[in-house]
């Protein structure tokens, strides 16, 4: 008898499904970075639940060997929270695009942050709607001409980094597939972070995205936060750097709460343990309705 020790490598997380993404899409790099991060963490694929909404990026769970759930537009976060609460032992990843996360699903982000379940939320931010063929997204720059803004967008874009920092996110990072090693590192750090982790990935759309946002251009202008000497435990400094969203491309960890505190599922387990003594057996559940 030999004892099998489960050691996973990146390809163990790669499924047989062929991505529908356009050749050259940034999301290819994102999924590669996720394979690498997962291999470093080493959890078995069947212990991972990977949840997404709708859009190009939301196809990503299908390209992994984890349990996946490609849900409905904008609603990945509530579903992921139900999964984590039902089984806190699972590693739960959530992914989607900027439209999925900040337009239709924008209302859920604040509450996922507030509840602080141990989830990792990866947004593939390409400033455009790709799957529906090139309409305005919540992160599209003002003035951008798209299928639904022929004369230029009249709206200010959402700043995803400031948005989540403002809601009190405990872990906020940004990456780009133009820097695979850096992206894999922040994904891994986000997963290891004991609480809700948000990672904004500048993943360009090769078909509808703007030329100066493509991987090659990104490579030239990205600036690792580590090289700026940024202290990731400083929320105000993180917010100041986050202001540069749309002009500068900072990568790495903007903010990591040094005292993350208990997660929602920790508190739930604590409450279950406290109250377990008051449990009545199922057969006696109706005894509470005896008048006295």
């Amino acid at each position, binding site marked *: 008898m030999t004892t099998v020790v489960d050691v996973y490598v990146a390809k163990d997380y790669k499924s047989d*499904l062929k991505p529908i993404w356009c050749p050259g899409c940034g999301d290819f790099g994102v999924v590669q970075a996720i394979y690498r991060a997962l291999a470093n963490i080493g959890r*078995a*694929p*069947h*212990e*991972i*639940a990977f*949840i997404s909404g*709708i859009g190009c990026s939301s*196809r990503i*769970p*299908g390209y992994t*060997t*984890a*349990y*996946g*759930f*490609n*849900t*409905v537009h904008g*609603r990945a*976060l*509530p*579903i*992921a*929270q*139900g*999964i*984590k*609460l*039902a*089984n806190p*032992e*699972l590693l739960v990843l959530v992914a989607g695009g900027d439209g999925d996360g900040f337009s239709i699903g924008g*209302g*859920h982000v*604040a*509450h996922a942050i507030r509840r602080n379940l141990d989830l990792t939320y990866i947004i593939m931010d390409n400033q455009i709607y790709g799957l529906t063929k090139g309409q305005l997204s919540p992160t599209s720059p003002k003035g951008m001409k798209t299928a639904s803004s022929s004369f230029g967008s009249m709206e200010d874009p959402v700043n995803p980094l400031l948005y989540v920092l403002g809601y009190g996110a405990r872990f906020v990072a940004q990456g780009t597939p133009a820097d695979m090693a850096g992206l894999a590192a922040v994904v891994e750090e986000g997963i290891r972070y004991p609480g809700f982790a948000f990672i904004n990935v500048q993943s360009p759309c090769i078909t509808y995205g703007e030329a100066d946002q493509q991987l090659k251009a990104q490579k030239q202008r990205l600036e690792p936060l580590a090289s700026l000497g940024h202290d990731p435990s400083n929320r105000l400094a993180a917010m100041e750097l986050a202001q540069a969203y749309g002009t500068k491309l900072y990568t790495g960890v903007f903010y990591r709460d040094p005292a993350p505190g208990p997660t929602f599922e920790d508190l*739930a387990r604590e*409450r*279950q343990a*406290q*109250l*377990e003594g*008051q*449990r*009545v057996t*199922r*057969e006696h*559940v*109706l005894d*509470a*309705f*005896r*008048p*006295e």
Partner: protein
Amino acid sequence: MTRDLVIGMAGSGGDGVVAAGEALMTAVALDGYYAMLTKSFGPQIRGGESSCRLRVATVPVPSPGGTLDVAIALNWDDFLRFGGELPIGGHTVVIYDSATGVAPDQIPVAGVRPAEVVPVAIGEMARKAAGTDKAKNTIVLGLLAGWFNLAPQHIVSGIRKRFAKKSAEVVAQNERAFQSGLEYAEAHPLTSDCRLEGAPADAPPKLVTDGNDMCAAAAIFAGCEFFGGYPITPSSEIMHFFNREIWKHGGTMLQAEDEIAGIGAVVGASFAGKKAMTATSGPGMSLKTEMLGLATIAELPLVCVNVQRGGPSTGIPTKSEQSDLWQAAFSAHGDVVRPVLAPVDVADTFGVTIEAFNIAEHYQTPVVVLSDQDIAQRKESFDAIDTSVFTLEQRRRPTEDELRDYLRYRFTESGISPISHPGMKGGNYLAAGIEHNESGAPTANGEMHAKMNDKRIRKFRPLAGRHDLFVVDGPDDATLALVGWGSLAGVLGEAAAAARAEGLRVKTLVPKLLYPVAADVYARFFRSVQAGLFIEQSHQGQLHRLVRMFVDLPPGIESLARSGSNPIDAGLVLARVRQLARGLQQARAPMVEQVG
């Protein structure tokens, strides 16, 4: 002496009308009576007018009853605001606070002269006995106990328990107030005798609760480990119950940021392998629709309770209606069969909720439970439920063998495929709202979509044979028929019993499975029927029309449907049944002459 007494009370906020009703409810239940307590409020959060109606009987109480036997007005103007809900008839005894300033000869309302009108200085008695107006409701309890033979010892012990937390003085004040009411009643007997018969000496101990608490308790009994929801009247008490109890059973609940997130978390918990439930009311149901479709195509079990209120939109949140049936059955895009169940009373909510979990788990589907405000928020006293008769179903998990070449959506003869969940080695799959093949991989292939639609719809076929989810009563060959569902089932039973007492041959059908329509059950039921009624609390008669989509009904079947907050009562149904019977007789008359 009477075996059945309907008492209606109304007053201003702070008069404690509902508290008095609750105290009376508990006291009569302890005495062994069957009872039903319905409450009604104005739209304000606190203050304003409120009313309650208590029906007490020595036999099970099927409905809130029609015209009141006893009407109690702490404030006459407030009483009149509930005119339609607290109707006074020729047999009613009206008791009111004489301080209202209305003379007894002015009491006739809407042309009806009540049997007896009794002004009592209720406020003055309260101030005298207890030193405060607050004890008015306790005076009323004393009057009721004295005049109608209602559980005095249990009311006193209830007063002691209720005020024990305050002070000995408050307990004493209220006991004095009760005594004062009781003595007044004894000193001033009524002319009409509507004292309640004693409950049978061997009356078994009763349970008392409302439909919402019963629904949550049933879910916990069924093994529900997760609840996700958002506050909405009149369903919120289901969430409140979960919040108090679910942790003790190792489960979790989430008050989500909205209705969509509430059911979303439930979809997630179900995907993770747990029995899970959400509860809402009309407008929340609209928001949950997309998630119900997701659970349908991903074949995930869940229970979604809709405590119906008056609609559309915000409608009347505090009043009952049965107008969400079409929404429950059809508010989905694409080809969907979504089972819909409805309980008929508080006790029945236990079994129906368990059945909803069983169907959800067995068929891997969302199931809608259509409760209504009436059942959900009224209190009933009923006989203890034997929980050992219920069996619990679990979803079909893959065997080790099946995990070797696992296909989540494998085409099987029954249409039901073994379902794995995260954490189960070898069961990894992609669940999706997008169409998929047997493994779960996305596909836009039309043939695969047709096959999957067939699988998802075919699997429900056995539900059509669930005769146990229908209650049929009355002579098999009856020519007259009544059909009704939800909270109107009791009204229907009461009307049928009265019609039979008049010699009419009437049978009744109460479906607890509303959708899919069990065509065989209806076809068999209607075989002997020449005239009948579908009785429903909605404007369009939603069940009547839904059944007609799938079953050819005999031509004499009509709809008795009414929306609005005043429930249909047995008297109205009985009047229509008599009409139908006369119609049938007239139709036969010429033939009789020819034969003669």
